[in-house]
């Protein structure tokens, strides 16, 4: 009896992570240092948090390109409130509410006016970033609160484990559980596979869509809080371009951009793959523009390759 090893997307990702580790530690003596590696994860935790929500949205066959702008709007509101002398924690709470409302607005417009998610979130992509610019103009707001900075920069007492990493892991477990083990999660998959059939079988498609975009808004708000805490300064262009990285993370994680398939483990793995790859490229003094080019190529390359694999599989079935 032959043992058949199924090469899944997750195994490929794992192999790639190992490759990144091997190659990077070969080229840079600073890479393979557990404290550095853990510390570096703080750089992409806000991306990770948003990618969890984006996974749901892409599996349901939608897309949200307003997440980074929503972050910018949220941060700008926090900055303006903080400048007026409000306690930073109250600012954060207000920011979280505003981000959630921003996400809800996306979902509401998509459902109420039967619009494609691309159209609505492209509009709010401009609108939310525009609001950030109106609020802050060309100024920046600094934050000097030790306790607030702990969120993005602090460590769990006595260990080199960053707080934001723990936060991400907790959320990843919750999101993974809900996606894979609950009815709600199955609904998300079935909406991505065939929205029309879902409507006919009585699944509350519209409600679920609104919930998904609202969650994405909430996670953008959380990401904004982590990011402002990490940078301890707020500018209107904060986090711009992050939507590309978030979508790239999800797609590289094996989630089909057409919806209906993919899983959370892949997305978590791809977050760390991209994160460590970026870290290693930084150590090797590769300019950030080149890293952007690599990220863009990675995104489009992944989709092309998975499309080709899909075609081959379809042909084999025939």
């Amino acid at each position, binding site marked *: 009896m032959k043992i058949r090893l199924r090469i899944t997307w997750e195994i490929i990702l794992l192999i790639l992570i190992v490759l990144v580790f091997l190659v990077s530690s070969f080229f840079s003596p600073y890479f393979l240092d557990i404290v550095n590696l853990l510390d570096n994860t703080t750089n992409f935790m806000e991306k990770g948090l948003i990618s969890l929500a984006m996974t749901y949205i892409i599996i349901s066959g939608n*897309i949200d*390109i307003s997440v980074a702008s929503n972050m910018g709007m949220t941060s700008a509101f926090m900055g303006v409130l903080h400048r007026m002398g409000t306690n930073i924690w109250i600012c954060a709470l207000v920011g979280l509410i505003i981000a959630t409302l921003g996400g809800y607005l996306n979902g509401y*417009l998509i459902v109420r*006016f*039967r*619009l*494609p998610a*691309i*159209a*609505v979130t*492209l*509009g*709010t*992509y*401009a*609108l*939310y*970033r*525009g*609001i950030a*610019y*109106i609020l802050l*103009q*060309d100024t920046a707001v600094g934050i000097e609160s030790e306790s607030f900075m702990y969120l993005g920069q602090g460590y769990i007492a006595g260990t080199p484990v960053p707080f934001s990493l723990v936060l991400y892991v907790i959320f990843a477990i919750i999101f993974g559980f809900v996606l894979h083990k609950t009815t709600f999660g199955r609904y998300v998959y079935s909406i991505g596979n065939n929205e029309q059939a879902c409507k006919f079988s009585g699944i509350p498609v519209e409600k679920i869509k609104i919930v998904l975009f609202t969650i994405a808004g909430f996670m953008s708000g959380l990401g904004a809080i982590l990011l402002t805490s990490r940078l301890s300064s707020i500018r*209107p262009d904060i986090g711009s*371009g992050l*939507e*590309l990285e978030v*979508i*790239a993370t999800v*797609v590289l994680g094996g989630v089909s*951009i*057409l919806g209906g398939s993919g899983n959370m483990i892949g997305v978590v793995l791809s977050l760390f793959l991209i994160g460590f790859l970026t870290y290693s490229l930084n150590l090797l003094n590769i*300019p950030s*523009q*080149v890293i*952007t*080019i690599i*990220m*863009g*190529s990675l*995104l*489009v390359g992944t*989709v*092309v390759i998975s*499309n080709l694999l899909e075609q081959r599989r379809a042909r084999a079935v025939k």
Partner: protein
Amino acid sequence: MAKMGSINGLREKSYDIAKLREIGIIFPLFLFGLIIALRNPYFISWENLRYIFLDASILTIVAIGEMMVILTGGIDLSVGSNLALTGMTVSMIYRDFHNFPVILAPLIGILIGGVCGAINGLFVAKGKVIPIIATLSTMYIFRGIVYIISGGRWVNAHEMPEGYKLLTRVEILGIPILVIYALIVFLFFYYLLNYKAIGRSIYAVGNNPQSAIYIGINKVKVLFLVYLISGILAGLSGVLYTSRFASAESSAAIGFELSAISAVVIGGVKTTGGSGKIGGVVLGALLLTMIVNGLNVMKISPFYKLALQGLMFLIAVIVDSLIAERYYKGRRRRV
């Protein structure tokens, strides 16, 4: 016979809506113009109107390319980066070779922009990558390349040959040549979209890709072509842009894709493809430019521009959706 009647009725109805949609742009165009002119009469001065038309010209050219893509149900987010890449490359060529014939500049722009567009086209048509992913990626890739080839440096006005700057500064019969470029592009694509088989195929692919294939349209070819056109027009605009502002910088035209897409959508092109008129797109570009110009004239902070653009974009898609809803309701009742 009854069937024929209903089809004709349908066509008449959709024609009405399309006409209504264009009035829906012209009305706010005049309303905005009136409000701003009442606050500051300089707005409708000859000098300022000339500025508006000049600014709208480049946007119109890019928006027409974007329109082709949106008509097929796609989107091209890379036009701003393409514009910057082409503008930078061509400016650097003319900075280093002053004696290069200026007349070739638009052609080089078309060539480089066309290559960028062809890359998008290959990804979407051949690689079956959904347009937003393909062009979001190339938007960042092209922008990254601009930074690399320029090393972050600008090409300044004094480094450009005079002829290159004249490319957009000449007037023919009192009409600025930039407006004439836009007019030529408009007329060419008006003819292509309305009177040529390939133009109708673009609409067909956006309307119903499956039936387009059944009636023998080569969908792969049409898709490739629209991204190629979008790239070519963005490339041409890159040359005009750097010539007009007499400088090329790495961060030029960031967010220009949003303006182009907004102009297209405000102009009444359906975001899911298949319908929309090129005249509407020109009006959409004009309306957008006028509002930005109006903000300047009324001395309102330019920071309002982006939010306003997003808001108008949303209003346009919502209004279109409401019109369509009413239209389908009316049709259902008749049946």
